[in-house]
């Protein structure tokens, strides 16, 4: 029981250090763009480049005007940059923090929350670009209130998923590499730039049973002015509780070990 208590304390201590990781997150974001001329614009460059490229290619392939699918595609990329971006970074989160972990007493949750904070800053910058571009193209829609609940739900899910990925990735470096390439595959398997309704059956099933697809819709749909499907909410909460249970077990078993795995 001691170990479970330690696991819960790790998470609580992580949140207690909010002033520290929120400050460090900003600093690290600013530091990334030190000596660049365009600065924070680079946060949004990826979103704009990929969205326009995909919308152009798929528009040309299917013969419809790129404007038809553009909001769905850019909303999908925006949400995926948060979900897939976190997943890709999560596997190396402790390795990246190794210096800090070996010189300061900090809970494991701290390092994940620091990464999540950076990802969230990233997301907000891209969200502004998303609104600006859609407004310029006269495709903009007002977000629904659901985002106020769904975004925190997705962030909580991704925080837990990061811990689940990060702990074994630190011990077994092959997992680290696997996650990186899985993230790329998941980009195609998640309905980001294709619609499940028009997809072949196997692909439709993937969209239906992939937790990431539901997390994606929880972010995208409210931003496009629609309420997310009830099914997505159910998946979102179910994965939240399931992941929380896994995280507690993992922290209880391996919390003390991670620093030796670096």
């Amino acid at each position, binding site marked *: 029981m001691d170990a479970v208590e330690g696991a819960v304390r790790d998470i609580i201590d992580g949140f207690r250090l909010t002033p520290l990781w929120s400050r460090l997150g900003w600093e690290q974001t600013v*530091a990334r763009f030190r000596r660049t001329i365009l600065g924070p614009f680079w946060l949004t460059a990826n979103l704009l480049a990929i969205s326009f490229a995909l919308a152009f290619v798929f528009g040309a392939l299917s013969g419809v005007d790129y404007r038809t699918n553009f909001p769905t595609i850019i909303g999908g990329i925006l949400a995926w940059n948060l979900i897939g971006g976190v997943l890709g970074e999560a596997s190396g989160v402790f390795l990246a923090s190794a210096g800090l972990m070996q010189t300061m007493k900090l809970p494991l949750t701290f390092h994940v929350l620091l990464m999540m904070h950076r990802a969230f800053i990233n997301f907000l910058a891209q969200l502004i670009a998303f609104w600006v571009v859609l407004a310029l193209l006269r495709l903009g829609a007002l977000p629904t209130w659901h985002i106020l609940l769904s975004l925190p739900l997705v962030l909580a899910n991704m925080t837990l998923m990061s811990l689940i990925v990060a702990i074994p990735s630190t011990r077994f470096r092959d997992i680290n590499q696997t996650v990186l390439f899985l993230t790329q595959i998941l980009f195609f398997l998640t309905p980001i730039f294709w619609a499940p309704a028009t997809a072949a059956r196997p692909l439709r099933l993937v969209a239906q049973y992939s937790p990431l697809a539901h997390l994606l819709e929880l972010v995208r749909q409210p931003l496009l002015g629609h309420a997310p499907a009830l099914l997505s909410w159910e998946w979102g909460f179910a994965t939240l509780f399931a992941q929380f249970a896994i995280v507690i077990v993992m922290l209880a078993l391996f919390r003390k*070990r991670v620093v030796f795995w670096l």
Partner: protein
Amino acid sequence: MSCSVRLDGVTLDYYVYSVRAQSLRNAVFNMAVGGKLYKDQGDITVVRALENVSFNLEEGDRLALIGHNGSGKTTLLKVIAGIYLPARGRVDVQGEMTSMIALGAGLDMDATGLQNIRKMGAMRMIPAKAIDARMGAIVEFSGLGDFVRLPMKTYSQGMMARLMFACATEFDADVLVLDEWLAAGDADFITKAMERMQGFVDRAKIVVMGTHNFALAQQVCNKVCVMDSGRITYFGPTEGWVAGGGGLKMAEA
């Protein structure tokens, strides 16, 4: 508030992964340093870095940790600082802790000295206003002058040590944990640092310091802990250690 450091039967193993246990074992047994390798499970090598370490430190104690490279000094400092959680035994530290274990750790090499002072303060959850109010004093003690406006990557090891020490000791902590890198500073700075550590003692704080500098240990510390292969071979007052010829023996070895 009273502060104390208590260690009770602390045993700590390092698990070294993905190293060919066989060749590492040969290499280690041929070296005159190090902890004990005592078992291997396939690709995992276990190094016992600390074995059954126990001691108590009370207010005003300044402990010098002495021992060969690889004898477990830094590991012990990390255990006291709470970075490593021991496999067995208890560690109980009362009081706010400041640790300076690796030189340059947690610093942003592209940021200036001033920015890093603020960052180090932030890492200890000191409000920005309080840091700015003491900024002048920190810069003055570090003796870096206008260099604080340059990026840290232009600093030498000694300059970095000066800045980190100045920053760590400007704000009171109950327990100060220092590794041997203090020696990176020059003679002038070490004299200043020793004076400042004396000040810590007047305020009933605890200092734990890993060092190879026996003069420093004798002048600053009232207790000595000699480590060998992860075990304590001497723990007691500095006078006893000096009288036993410890300082001389170690210096020759």
